[in-house]
């Protein structure tokens, strides 16, 4: 239809290429070219996508090491006392500054045994405080409270405080094994 109209009026604006070539018989070639262009576009997108998506997902792809960190010596912690200890995370980047620090509540239960609690409340992660007089851990955010063994005493926390591993290395170094921030899941 449109071809006839064009033939009748040669002065008219050039026919849009689609309409003119829609009847070109060389269908297979055209088909191939379309597929080629789409395919190549896909390859290009993939080639860019792999590194970009990997950069986004890097935290899940890379290895997350753990490390033993010295938090003090035996003489620093009298038996029965509870202390806030600071340590450096396992694998800080050079530009972390103080943000790669973590803290734990360390208690010396006996001459040889220690317990270390994560400071992260199991509710929404806020930093819990050890209240010496009360003998309880208390959370400032929504009033979660834990007994001194880390189990839930009151408030919204769904589970007790997570613990770190502690060892005494050499004659008197107290060391703590770094660990991820404990994330409470929906099933807890």
């Amino acid at each position, binding site marked *: 239809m449109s071809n006839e109209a064009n033939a009748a009026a040669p002065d008219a604006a050039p026919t849009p290429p689609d309409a003119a070539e829609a009847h070109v018989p060389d269908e297979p070639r055209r088909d191939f070219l379309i597929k080629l262009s789409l395919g190549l576009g896909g390859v290009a997108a993939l080639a860019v996508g792999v590194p970009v998506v990997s950069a*986004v*997902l*890097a*935290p*899940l792809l890379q290895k*997350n090491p753990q490390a033993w960190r010295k938090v003090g010596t035996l003489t620093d912690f009298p038996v029965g006392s509870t202390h*806030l200890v*600071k*340590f450096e*995370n*396992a694998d*800080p*980047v*050079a*530009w*972390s*500054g*103080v*943000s*790669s*620090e*973590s*803290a734990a509540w360390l208690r010396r239960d006996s001459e040889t045994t220690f317990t270390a609690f994560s*400071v*992260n409340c199991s*509710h*929404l*992660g*806020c*930093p*819990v*405080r050890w*209240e010496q*007089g*009360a*003998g*309880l851990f*208390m*959370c*400032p*955010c*929504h*009033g979660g*409270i834990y*007994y*001194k063994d880390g189990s839930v*005493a*009151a*408030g*919204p926390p*769904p589970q007790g405080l997570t613990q770190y591993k502690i060892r005494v290395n050499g004659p008197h170094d107290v060391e703590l094994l*770094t*660990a*991820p*921030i404990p*994330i*409470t*899941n*929906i*099933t807890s």
Partner: protein
Amino acid sequence: MKILRSIWAWLDDRLGISDTLLPLARHPVPPGAKWSYVFGSATLFCLILQVVTGVALTLLYQPTSSEAYKSLQFISHQAVFGRSLRAIHYFGASGMVLMVGIHMLRVYITASYKFPREMSWISGVFLLFLTLAMGFTGQLLRWDSNGVWSAVVAAEQVGRVPVIGTYAARLLLGGDTIGGQSLSRFYSYHTLLFPALLFGLVGFHLYLVLRNGVSEPPVPGRLVDPKTYRQQYQAMLKKVGVPFWPYAAWRDILFGSATIIAIIGLALIYGPPELTQPPSPATIYTNPAPDWYLLPVFALFALMPAKIESVVIFVGPVLTVLVLLALPFMASSGERSPLRRPWAVFGSVCVVVFMVALLRLGLQAPWSPKFDAKALPPTLVHSADPLVLKGAGLFANKGCLYCHLVNGHGGHRGPELTEVGRRLTPGELRIRIVNGGGNMPAYGGVISEKELAAVIAFLETRK
């Protein structure tokens, strides 16, 4: 003069100013929309303000974990107009959240989301959440101890997503723990990714206004019928429509400018939010709380019964988004006037009251132990009995005062005990203290028999 005119003619021809742009600016809009329609454009004004002040702040801000805090100190205390810039950016964010909220309420109350403007509503829903995401990430960029702990709280929240929760949390923090990588990510989201999405969606949102027209003010009894709506709308425009520029636009510009002037005024009076301690996750003596516009969510998490909370943290937002997205399809035709949609108005009022109530609670945070509560002075203990005096001391020392109010001292988490001696016998007091229950820890294992007697003696004098 002639040269200028020919330059104009050339530009006008090549850019299509009179052919394409002016007709857009002059597109006819329904009359009578008046002042209720200015909130969308006020949001846009705020967005522009945020972009401009945001760019200015990036000239000063150091987006690395080790330097961000120092650069914020510099911005707040030394940089030329740095303090004002931070303050304007903060109040601009507040203004934008507020305007988005009011705009959305207006659209809902006048049912402007109905045919053919469903996609305007849907893109608006995404814009709402992007705005909140900008607010949250922006708050984190303050990268003080509050910022660091807010990031942890956010990670714990996404941690509740079933199956992928832990991965999502790691992804948010950029690793197992807070660190240098965390801030880089938030910075990228806040200054590149989210703004890019915002610009795209705002463009789409505006394009739809041109495509479907601004909704006319609703008239009770005039129903939206998808079959005839467009024709009626066009006919109405032909008859009574007025050019957007300048007959409707002046209100938008006036209100938008007033909004910005108000924001700057507030910024100059109140200044930016103060920085807390440096961004060390080992700084635990801090009480993380979000800026005011996220406080209602924060309050909700504090108030929710612990049993259902894990589920609600995940299901709540998903359900909210789904309902919002489904709204224009569930009610795409019919009555638009709020006068004939009392339930819609009632619902909106409920949402606003609920939000304001949560905000007020969030500001008071009565569920937080009051760690700085001071022991009762002897004048208030008002007793010469050494046992009672000892009990009063223990009441503070054992942390009871953090949660219980006595004679105006103490926290609000638990019941007030100023007159507890009238309500409970010593035996009942003993049972409650030893066994706890609900939000009260069982003190049985924490308190000695002698101490318990002293505390009970003290409480019995409270009448």
